[in-house]
């Protein structure tokens, strides 16, 4: 187990090295380099040289990389000249709001997706199974933003039940203080994730139902409820953990779209406006943050998997 932990952590560190390198190279893909992105096409050669010198862009790439990583390790994600604000303070301000959205959406979708997925597997090929499969197909194929738009059209424009925008408060308390406005964004987010969990849970339970231990449990006279919820369900749940770890990039992506559609003042919206303004410090800072979250999430998921499932030994 210790060997596995060391090896797996080593892999994660190597992956982090690769992704930070890729992210830094991204800066240099901007036409004319980062300096053009900030100073614009009319900057004089003197201004460009001055800027490059001041921000270290005239140094060799490996020096830039080491300096940048050094800043990252010390928790400094950069400074946005566009917002006149450090990326850290931007994150401190917006991240909690996005975390609320992601947590609420994920929890709601798991609460529906997992039990319904189990139900579908146990009652496979029934009318309910087909109906729920159709729902999850719809979830897979509907663009997040389109679902958001039609929900706004139905519930805010046609019938005035919910406001068309997410809560606009600047603090977490203000956001939670307006639960009515949270319903549409959270529902949209949860519906698309629901498709993922329920389909995965269904096939996972189906795989487990034919295992030997299920036959053993039945032979020992366990009730069907005990077989499904006491044995199969618990074993299927283990693999959901891996899926959760792997889903972090799509959770982040989903959050961006929800925040844009509902004008939810979180990190996704900040990232989107940074993209429109070519505010590359914010773009890179937030990308690195999301990437590190993913790598660490995958690592924890793998370790959790190894802890929970004694059959898995790497």
């Amino acid at each position, binding site marked *: 187990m210790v060997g596995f932990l060391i090896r797996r952590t080593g892999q994660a560190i190597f992956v982090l090295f690769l992704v930070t390198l890729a992210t830094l190279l991204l800066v240099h893909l*901007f036409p004319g380099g980062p300096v053009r992105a900030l100073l614009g096409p009319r900057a004089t050669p003197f201004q460009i040289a001055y800027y490059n010198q001041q921000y270290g862009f005239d140094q060799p790439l490996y020096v830039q990389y080491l300096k940048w990583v050094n800043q990252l390790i010390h928790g400094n994600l950069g400074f946005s000249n566009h917002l006149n604000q450090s990326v850290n303070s931007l994150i401190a301000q917006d991240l909690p709001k996005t975390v609320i959205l992601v947590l609420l959406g994920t929890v709601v979708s798991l609460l529906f997706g997992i039990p319904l997925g189990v139900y579908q597997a146990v009652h496979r090929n029934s009318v309910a199974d087909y109906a729920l499969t159709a729902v999850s197909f719809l979830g897979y194929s509907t663009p997040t933003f389109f679902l958001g*738009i039609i929900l706004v059209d139905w519930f805010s424009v046609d019938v005035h039940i919910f406001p068309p925008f997410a809560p606009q408060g600047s603090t977490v308390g203000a956001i939670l203080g307006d639960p009515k406005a949270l319903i549409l964004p959270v529902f949209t987010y949860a519906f698309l994730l629901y498709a993922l969990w329920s389909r995965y849970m269904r096939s996972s339970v189906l795989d487990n139902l034919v295992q030997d231990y299920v036959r053993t449990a039945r032979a020992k006279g366990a009730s069907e409820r005990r077989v499904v919820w006491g044995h199969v369900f618990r074993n299927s749940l283990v693999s959901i953990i891996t899926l959760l770890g792997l889903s972090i990039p799509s959770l982040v992506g989903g959050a961006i779209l929800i925040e844009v559609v509902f004008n939810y003042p979180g990190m996704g919206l900040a990232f989107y406006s940074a993209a429109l303004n070519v505010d590359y410090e914010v773009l890179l800072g937030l990308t690195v943050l999301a990437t590190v979250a993913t790598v660490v999430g995958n690592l924890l998921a793998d370790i959790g998997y190894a802890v929970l499932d004694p059959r898995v030994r790497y």
Partner: protein
Amino acid sequence: MSIEASGTQAILASEAELGLVPVTNQRGMFRRALEVFVENKLALVGLGFIVFMLLFCFIGPHIYVTNQVDTNLDNYLCTPSAQHLLGCNELGYDELGRLMVGGQTSIEVGLAAAIVSVLVGTLYGAISGFAGGFVDAIMMRVVDAGLSLPSLMVIMILSVIFHPTPVTIIFIIAVFYWFGVARLVRGETLALRNREYVQAVKVIGGRPLRSVIRHIVPNAIGTIIVQATFAVADSILTLSVLGFLTLGVAPPNTDWGSMLSGGLTYIQGGNYWWLIYPPGILIILICISFNFIGDALRDAFETRLQRR
């Protein structure tokens, strides 16, 4: 399938692997897969819809002729009428004609991005799995890194950098999709590379690349085709997301996602349903169609393995 027939298949296969005859078991495999595929009604419906959409987008503009280049503000948000069957958008473009033109971009980019990413992913995965050891470990860490990047964020950054045309956007989408394909194909390769016929190539002095291209890739073709089908649906969705974020193809070019983005602006100003529902529903239907086909193909190729 009788035992005799599968015996013949096996003999043919081994002769093929020795390079004596072309790989003739391929046709049999595809024919059997086709049999399973046509039994799946949903997949046939999906296929029918895709054929219909191809006709609609590529032949349609020659029948229902509209001007999709010049704006006409006299038609600002005009309601559906005999002249404009689905009304017009805020620039006076005929919405039905725009659906056809936008559909061309969506389908072309979706197909091309899927092909590029599956080709790259297949070669990368097969080489990594076949090489094994240290090379495999490094190559797979690169894939891990790619899969850890939040794809939508980086795709947005790349779109900002490159101001995408339909051609560059293909590569922007493909850059992120091939990692997943590579990992799957590598898994298949690990299972295949110790088979006798692959070992035989090595023994008779065949080059490694020959094993990969002539033997491993054709045997993993089921997985690859299934992945390609899902990749088309995902690429169309990604393109529509970029279009919605106004980071997609530039006007007068358009795609279904960009059309939705325009529609969102006017949603609160009145009942402009034709700006929202037609493009949105077409995206959903075409993605469901490709998903149905992908599922049916997966069943078709897996059945082949079971029958063996």
